[in-house]
């Protein structure tokens, strides 16, 4: 039966059919739906781990025990998981192990545009890259076979476009793979210098063997057509080549590390002009060039953003044929939802004129107008340690008007380590945990403090307040994110205190399932002074009527009351309407 599947759903399906028994992940766009899909198969144990390092280690453990296992992450998650995966390249596997890593060319939802293939080369881990949903499923299955055949973890690389495109996929049955018997083998699984030196030799040999074998493997294939122009391409970029120049010859690579040198040499010999068309970094191009082959690549194709067939047509054929876009249109960037608790917290920080060190989540949107309070965002978990660094550099007094903010999911991801550091090394900073009871930005996943797991089953919920106290923070309190007076008092007090403090701002995400909004706010136009004060809160449900009085879209308003608290004229009234 053929079914339309997202690339991510196809990856999950492939793992299921390959007999995977354990899957661990931390959410991250564009990889999240892989886990959400695989969780639906009762045959597979699937979990949200608190971060990607933990997820990779869970998969490694399952693999050592002899079963097929998988971990999934977005590209920056691979940085977090790099430590175990780099050494897993040495130990190799028991049952097949596949790490799915989804890159984000074009930065649809990320803080950088790094290329997983570069990291995989450094780690000496083989990489497979499919070019549509059907291949995604097939390649995952091949990845498990190759993992076991070559005794190596395999990275399956996806990109946003592949992960979030749907294509027709033929569903097949799951094949149960017998567990490999567990063997105690310290030469293979205890990576201390004596053993690791030997394994390093093994790793090098493995890559060489694989490179030779992959020259004749159907994962890589040459499609000869007109031999004047030849492209080396993989993944979604291959589709752009076929779309823009169906008459050209193509070497389609399914294996991106190690490269099938013999096949590349053959292709290069047979075409007149050779291009490498690869999104992001010139990973293939530089290796082809190092083989002494003349090739055109990044001098005409960009390292930035996503590719397209139009981009290829323009660069190679000089053709560009479409209407000019309308210039000067207002941008429509993403915004915090109406009724988002983060907006309320930020409004208080803004009034107190605090410097705010940020982290990653929906609340990162607090950096842009009209909220404009967040001043730094680096990576998940960084806010607490960044504030600590500012304090150690400039002294306690310098940070009396500074705080850091971190989401609940991000706090449990890697923020907790930073809080340990701040406590241990006597920071006096103020940490605000934006506890909206979910992993909001990636689409509302459960985490270790929500009371449910990936499968939707009840799970133990970490009490954040107790956790902070156990770390050694004595000044810990919880306030409602919408209680602006209490929050104002707490922030004033804690930023002045000479000790480390944690303020947990709690209120559920406005989009959380089951969240009911009994109220809406209405404008009394007669009382409205047309001052626009309410609008500065930045809620997208607000706008102005033609006569400049405030207007609230009743469909959008969730009745949080924030705008009303900005109104000095009593023109906004909260009323119970019992929506939903």
């Amino acid at each position: 039966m053929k079914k339309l599947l997202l690339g991510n759903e196809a990856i999950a399906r492939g793992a299921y059919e390959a007999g995977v028994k354990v899957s661990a992940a931390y959410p991250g766009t564009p990889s999240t739906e892989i886990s959400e899909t695989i969780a639906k198969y009762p045959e597979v144990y699937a979990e949200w781990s608190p971060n990607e390092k933990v997820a990779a280690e869970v998969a490694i453990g399952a693999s050592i025990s002899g079963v097929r296992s998988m971990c999934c992450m977005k590209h920056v998650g691979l940085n977090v998981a790099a430590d175990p995966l780099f050494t897993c390249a040495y130990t190799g596997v028991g049952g097949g192990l596949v790490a799915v890593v989804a890159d984000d060319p074009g930065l649809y939802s990320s803080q950088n545009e790094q290329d997983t293939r570069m990291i995989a080369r450094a780690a000496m881990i083989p990489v497979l890259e499919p070019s549509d949903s059907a291949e995604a499923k097939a390649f995952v299955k091949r990845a498990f076979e190759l993992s076991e055949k070559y005794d190596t973890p395999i990275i399956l690389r996806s990109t946003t476009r592949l992960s979030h495109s749907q294509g027709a996929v033929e569903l097949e049955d799951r094949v149960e793979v017998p567990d490999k018997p567990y063997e105690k083998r310290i030469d293979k699984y205890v990576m201390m210098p004596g053993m690791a030196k030997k394994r390093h030799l093994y790793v090098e040999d493995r890559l060489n063997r694989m490179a030779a074998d992959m020259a004749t493997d159907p994962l890589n294939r040459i499609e000869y057509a007109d031999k004047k122009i030849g492209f080396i391409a993989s993944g979604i970029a291959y589709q752009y080549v076929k779309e823009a120049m169906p008459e050209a010859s193509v070497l389609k690579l399914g294996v991106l590390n190690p490269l099938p040198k013999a096949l590349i040499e053959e292709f290069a010999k047979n075409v007149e002009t050779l291009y490498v068309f690869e999104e992001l970094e010139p990973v293939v191009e530089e290796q082809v060039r190092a083989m002494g082959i003349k090739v055109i690549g990044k001098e005409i194709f960009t390292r930035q953003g996503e590719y397209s067939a139009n981009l290829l047509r323009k660069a190679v054929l000089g053709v560009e044929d479409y209407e000019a876009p309308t210039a000067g249109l207002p941008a429509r960037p993403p915004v915090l939802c109406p009724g988002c608790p983060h907006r309320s917290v930020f409004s208080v920080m803004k009034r107190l004129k605090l410097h705010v060190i940020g982290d990653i989540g929906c609340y990162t949107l607090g950096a842009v107008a009209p909220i404009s309070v967040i001043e730094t965002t680096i990576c998940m978990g960084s806010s607490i340690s960044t504030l600590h660094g500012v304090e150690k550099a400039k002294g306690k007094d310098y940070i009396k008007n500074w705080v850091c903010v971190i989401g609940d999911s991000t706090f449990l991801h890697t923020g907790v380590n930073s809080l340990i550091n701040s406590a241990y090394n006597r920071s006096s900073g103020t940490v605000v945990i934006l506890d909206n009871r979910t992993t909001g930005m990636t689409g509302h996943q459960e985490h270790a403090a929500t009371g449910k797991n990936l499968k939707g089953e009840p799970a133990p919920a970490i009490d954040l307040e107790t956790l902070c106290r156990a770390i050694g923070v004595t000044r810990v309190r919880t306030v409602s994110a919408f209680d602006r007076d209490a929050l104002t008092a707490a922030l004033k007090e804690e930023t002045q205190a000479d000790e480390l403090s944690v303020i947990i701002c709690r209120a559920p995400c406005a989009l959380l399932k089951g969240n009911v909004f009994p109220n809406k706010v209405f404008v009394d136009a007669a009382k409205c002074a047309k001052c626009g004060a309410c609008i500065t809160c930045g809620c997208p449900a607000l706008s102005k009527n033609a006569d400049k009085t405030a207007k609230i879209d009743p469909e959008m308003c969730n009745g949080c009351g924030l705008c009303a608290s900005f109104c000095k004229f009593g023109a906004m009234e909260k009323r119970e309407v019992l929506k939903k």
Partner: protein
Amino acid sequence: MSTNIMIVGVGGQGTLLTSRILGGIAIEKGYDVKLSEVHGMAQRGGSVVTFVRYGECVREPIVEEGQADVLIAFERLEAARYHHFLKKGGVMIVNDVVIEPITVISGQTTYPTDVLDPLEGKYKIVKVDANKIAEEVGNRRVFNTVVLGVAARHMDVEKDVWLRVIERTVPPKTVEINQKAFLTGLGE
């Protein structure tokens, strides 16, 4: 040859659902089909684009500048933002409503109400106030299915196929209202 459809709107307006209905239609008609969706950050009230392509053999999942046969826009400014994705003479179905982006609400810029005027004549532009029609149908949220109904007038697909695919794709409780909205948009 493929048919290329592009759906644009504001995060939360249901572009994903509409593209999935169109994908279902293509499958039902026995075509090869690819859809491209937006998940994650952009969904939070940002400008959102989804693509549907179907035909004998579809390669890339996106529709590029100058290639869309039909552009379905759930909001006026978004229609203007992506018009150049249309082929010359392509069909633009616009839900002619204004949703002010935060850059306008917060006073950084103004909403250009006449953005579609210069495009008249370049494309076949069909404007509809689907929000109002949806309200009359009984639920403001199904405006997107009203717009789809209007778009269906320009596509060669039988009515029962549409109704069947809608039934399969929308949440079970909303099948009836969505079918009603679709038929109203179709002009029945």
